[in-house]
């Protein structure tokens, strides 16, 4: 996967991507959107895949859940991985279901030894089933559990060490969580080992006021804000250039606007690279 900026692939841009072949380094598709056994949608991704490197990014595996792994979901993911041969496959450090019922949202885990053992074993099981390494993404969060015994960055680092997964650092999620839980985003970045990070996500968020407090919500509905671009600079300095995704999947803008955001990420990377040389 090229260490440049790619964009999230959305169905409304499918035909334009095929007809215009926009200049972006790669595309990331939500795995679940291409679970279909056949039909036009998966055929379009076949054609896009012929022209661009691809990452499959899952939102529904509920890796941290104490329910058994969903065998059907995993089989669908495996079929998609075999069909599209993505360079990267990723999922979230979160859970979404208990007793077969799903919230279909990315709920945070308590950062305890039990949760660490559990989610690491599940990630290892998924990697075994897919026959490849996957990347695990840190999520935005709006609550912390009273029983958490370590900070998120320590938990995330330990998950990578225990399971052998790579890390997908979502810089917007770090920014959102740092604001919501009042920690230092740079402390988070500097606690993550250099070699573990294989992808960055950049996205926009929204602000919701609760009385005197403002909560940041990870909505993916706007451009990347200046503070997150600043965090991206810090991440580039620490981890070097890795594939970077512009994630914008709600109130989706024209394709050209997404490409412009990716160009901006590439320009920042080139600037830092030139400066360092």
């Amino acid at each position, binding site marked *: 996967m090229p260490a440049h900026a790619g964009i999230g692939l959305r169905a409304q841009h499918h035909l334009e991507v095929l007809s215009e072949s926009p200049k972006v380094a790669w595309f990331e598709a939500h795995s679940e959107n291409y679970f279909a056994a056949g039909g036009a949608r998966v055929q379009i991704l076949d054609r896009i895949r012929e022209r661009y490197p691809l990452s499959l990014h899952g939102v529904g595996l509920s890796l941290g859940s104490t329910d058994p792994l969903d065998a059907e979901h995993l089989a669908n993911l495996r079929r998609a991985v075999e069909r599209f041969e993505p360079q990267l496959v990723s999922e979230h450090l979160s859970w979404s279901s208990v007793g077969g019922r799903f919230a279909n949202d990315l709920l945070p*885990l308590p950062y305890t030894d039990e949760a660490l053992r559990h989610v690491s074993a599940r990630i290892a099981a998924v990697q075994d089933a897919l026959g490849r390494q996957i990347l695990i993404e840190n999520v935005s969060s709006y609550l912390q559990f009273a029983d958490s015994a370590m900070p998120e960055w320590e938990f995330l680092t330990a998950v990578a060490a225990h399971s052998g997964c790579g890390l997908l650092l979502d810089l917007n999620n770090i920014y959102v969580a740092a604001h919501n839980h009042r920690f230092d985003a740079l402390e988070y970045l500097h606690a993550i080992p250099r070699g573990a990070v294989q992808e960055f996500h950049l996205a926009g968020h929204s602000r919701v006021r609760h009385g005197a407090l403002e909560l940041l919500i990870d909505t993916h509905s706007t451009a990347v804000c200046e503070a997150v671009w600043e965090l991206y600079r810090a991440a580039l300095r620490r981890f070097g250039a890795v594939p970077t995704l512009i994630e914008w999947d709600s109130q989706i803008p024209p394709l050209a606007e997404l490409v412009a955001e990716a160009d901006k990420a590439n320009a920042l990377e080139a600037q830092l690279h030139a400066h360092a040389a």
Partner: protein
Amino acid sequence: MPTLRELQTRVLGAVLDGEDAAELIRAGGLTPSERLEVYANNARINFTESLRLGYPVLLRLVGEAYFDQCARAYRMQCPSRSGDLHSAGAAFAAYLGELHTGGEHRYLADVAHLEWLCQESLMAAEHGRLDLARLAEVAPARYESLRFKLHPAARLFASDYPAREIWEANLATETEPPLIDLAKGGERLLLMRRGGRLEFHRLSPGEHAFLESLAAHAAFAAAVEKGAAAADAAAAFDAAAVLRRFVAAEAIVDFS
């Protein structure tokens, strides 16, 4: 300290059912219930949005407010059972049918059912044509016990209302849809996908019963019997002609 299982059970109860899980959440700033409400709200929005994507024509017919109200009530009865939200709307048409039993809006459930079948058809697996040479090798004595297989994208539909006409008229978002007389009667349909596009074949009662029987894995003789029993009294059920028609339409694609 609760186990991970206990914690997840209580937090999901708070997110989906509004139960209390305050003591599990770290204090400070917002209250625990305000924090949990962010997730509860996301869960509601994600569920409703998946239904809106799955039923765009129904959404257009009833408007956002009533659609969302139905979606919320449906979710209480049929919460999401998968990490893949695409399947969350599978029972929505049946739910609407119960909601409008006997009422003047009964047709809405049929339009919703048709929309869902269209989605299923568009996402189903590919399959080649029936191998006619292989069929020709079958001894006539075996015909009656053959089990024909429908294309994975084939779906059967029946309604007392002009559901397809309503569906088609409300697909476009720019134009004002025409008035359609609900009393004009319904139809039976075979949905197919060819070259990535949906195709609709009108079916006689006999053809519909015959294909439904094949779809339920009945043997050829039993399916012909069902077809003949359902056929209009005026028209005899010509099993060979019906078989040829649906093989040509690539709806019947295999046998065993």
